[in-house]
């Protein structure tokens, strides 16, 4: 996590280990989890529209198992922070992150969630420059807003982080996985 922002208490970031902690069962369950990630609908600003577009027919995140956007954090395991986190909203973000049950991941979608984006200027008083100052982030997807394909690549990177390998063809390498 980046150095915390003054005035906002960062989230409790430790996740307890699973009850049954065998390597084989972990590997198996990790693949199951990665192939059916349930995102939390946390669209804040412009990037939310690209997140909606990714759920729609053209880019279709449902091919990769993640179309079940849950409104409640207690039923989600991926928080896609899509948009600028303002100082007024920061305690709510922290609370939502803490309400998600482990194992949970966070994707910072767009420049605002990564580092404040176009709204950083000297004397800025209203935004958190990067959501990783308050919650731990697993994948960063740059862009303003990133294309929906970017979000999908971020999802693949997250699946790679969870399972250890990439499951889908790389755009530059043809159909070879």
């Amino acid at each position, binding site marked *: 996590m980046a150095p915390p922002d003054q005035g906002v208490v960062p989230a409790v970031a430790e996740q307890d280990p699973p009850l049954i902690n065998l390597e084989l069962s972990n590997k198996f369950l990790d693949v199951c989890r990665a192939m059916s990630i349930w995102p939390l*609908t946390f669209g*804040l*600003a412009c990037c*939310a529209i690209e997140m909606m*577009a990714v759920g*729609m*027919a053209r880019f279709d995140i449902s091919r990769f198992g993640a179309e079940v956007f849950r409104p409640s954090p207690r039923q989600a395991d991926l928080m896609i922070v899509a*948009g600028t986190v303002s100082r007024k909203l920061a305690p*709510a973000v922290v609370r939502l992150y803490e309400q998600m049950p482990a194992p949970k991941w966070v994707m910072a979608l767009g420049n605002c969630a990564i580092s404040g984006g176009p709204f950083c200027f000297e004397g800025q008083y209203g935004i958190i420059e990067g959501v990783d100052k308050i919650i731990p982030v697993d994948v960063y997807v740059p862009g303003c807003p990133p294309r929906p394909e970017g979000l999908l690549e971020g999802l693949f990177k997250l699946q790679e982080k969870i399972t250890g390998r990439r499951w889908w063809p790389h755009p530059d390498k043809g159909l070879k996985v």
Partner: protein
Amino acid sequence: MNPEQAFRNLAGDFYTRSLQPGPTENTLILNMGPQHPSTHGVLRIVLELDGEYILRADPVLGYIHRMHEKMGEVKTFAQYLPNMGRVDYLHALAWNWAYVGAVEKLCGVEVSERAEYLRVVTSEMNRISSHFVWWGAYLLDLGAFTPIMYAFDDREWLLDLLQIVTGSRLTYCYFRFGGVSDDVTPEFVEGTLKWCEHMRERLPMYKALVTDNVILRNRCEEIGPIDLDMARRYGATGPVLRGSGVAYDVRRAEPYSVYDRFQFEIPVGTGAGDAMDRYLVRLAEIEQSLNIIEQALKTLPEGPHMHEKAPKRLKAPKGETYFAVEGARGKIGVHLLSDGGKNPYRVKLRAPGFSNLSLFAELVRGVLLADAVSILGSLDMVIPEIDR
């Protein structure tokens, strides 16, 4: 968490406490938002409920306040252009236009004729894409999961066309002082005309699938009627006002650019100004925008896409000006003051959603919570525009 912090959380925060005074014997204080499934943005409404009926509603804003007016004073005139795409990202080109128009008015910069037509075409296409998102998201709020798929599918074709000419899908920054940043290719013109034909065939399908649907009718008719007195008191504009029967459209009332050369109607609601009227007005506006786009593309004049005398470095004189355009949500205004320096002295952004949302508190008194969701969707808000 220490006990003091836990107790403070139970007592609610500043906004919940400020709703407390009043008879709250058998009522429930409920927070709707700032994270809630409808995709209008980060809006929080503190509700006082008696069962399912709303007694009081108090919208709390500021959760996506991104300091646009402060940035107007810190950035130069040209550096501020990308901000305008992000105020209301669904109709970004209208905000682009409002700011660029205000600067051009203040500095006396002329716009080339071809650029005026291109501005009209791209802005109307953006209006249609904004109405698609509104339509899909509104129906999603009401529980219909299919129409949003159709809306976004048609929108993707439209975004591909706009990407050819502007380079972006969502937060456009296409307009410059004196014209537009890039000229259009014949591929764009042909593609857009073909898309307009395709859309005209699709709109009857939208009507048959959704508008005539009995569930939608029950959820929209007689919900949230806005009478003329309320609309005028709050300064409502756009489809919210036109749904109540007033044909007020900035493109006709304060004509700007070349809109006076095109034939288009201003659709108005014929009923009590309820959610169904606003719904029908927006769908009719999509059709009128298609008319404008076709007329503009067929009569597109030759010429440069930037005026020859457009300044390379903008020197703003001292003074103030106001410029208004018609956005998808209503009347967008930019009040610009300059003291002759590199940066604007003050940029005041008049967001239509701000005035439209301010009537929500009075409108939902005594209404069922589910109907309040329908009213909120019918007002078509983008919260970053309200919070600026």
